[in-house]
């Protein structure tokens, strides 16, 4: 387990940027900033709606770590799992889950809560609970991912 420092100011400011991003997207395109929905619109079968805006949003997400490093001079700090089996299992669960729930942390957890959507309040409570239970089970019950 990697200990991470408590960063209330950076996290609050970063959250405010995410909120401002969602407001800007709604104002300019009329859509909510739900990442899983934006990814979905870029994959077949295609709906009639403009995938160009979705592609632009994702391209800018890809550019953001480079812009970060240019602007701050520092790297993006992260610790990603070294286990490819864990990454694949988790990616499959996340993909299927957000498709069924029609939203993830951004669409339900930020945009949905901000507009008091009942579906989003339920979804956020459920995914927070199963995520915390999963971390508890892996770290404190079985003592780590068994198939490194």
């Amino acid at each position: 387990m990697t200990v991470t420092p408590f960063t209330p100011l950076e996290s609050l400011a970063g959250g405010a940027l995410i909120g401002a991003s969602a407001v800007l997207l709604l104002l300019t395109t009329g859509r909510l900033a739900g990442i899983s929905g934006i990814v979905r619109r870029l994959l077949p079968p295609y709906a009639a709606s403009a995938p160009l805006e979705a592609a632009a949003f994702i391209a800018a997400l890809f550019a953001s770590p480079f812009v970060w490093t240019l602007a701050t001079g520092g790297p993006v700090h992260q610790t990603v799992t070294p286990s490819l089996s864990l990454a694949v299992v988790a990616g499959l669960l996340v993909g299927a889950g957000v498709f069924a729930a029609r939203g993830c942390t951004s669409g339900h957890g930020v945009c949905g809560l901000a507009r008091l959507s009942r579906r989003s309040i339920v979804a956020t409570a459920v995914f927070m609970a199963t995520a915390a239970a999963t971390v508890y089970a892996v770290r404190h019950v079985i003592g780590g991912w068994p198939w490194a």
Partner: protein
Amino acid sequence: MGVIGALLSGLLFGLGLILSGMVDPAKVQNFLDIAGTWDPSLAFVMAGAIGVAAPGFWLVRRRAAPLSGSQFRVPPADAPIDRRLVIGAAVFGIGWGLAGFCPGPALVSLPLAAPGTIAFVSAMVAAISVCALLQARK
């Protein structure tokens, strides 16, 4: 206008995820690990995001239409809660807890090319594609 808005919005979103620490799976998992190395930072991310988005959305929705396009494409806030929503959210949460990645931070991390990130995003996109194609065939 729509494309420029989407570009700026995507950039702000990505920088917000990086500044807040959401892009670090270890930090996300520590937020979820109340019994262990708990790091409450991510509660501040949600507070900051909702604190700006809630009044911002309210102001934007007073307009008849967005700057680009003829109408807002937003699901109704009072749509019914069904089993699909609850099961989907539960499955998503398990994957989120396992890797510490949800879709936004995983995509922002993709250009940094950690092997775990590439594997996660490939599996996630494959799962969304298969689900979408299966649903379309019904």
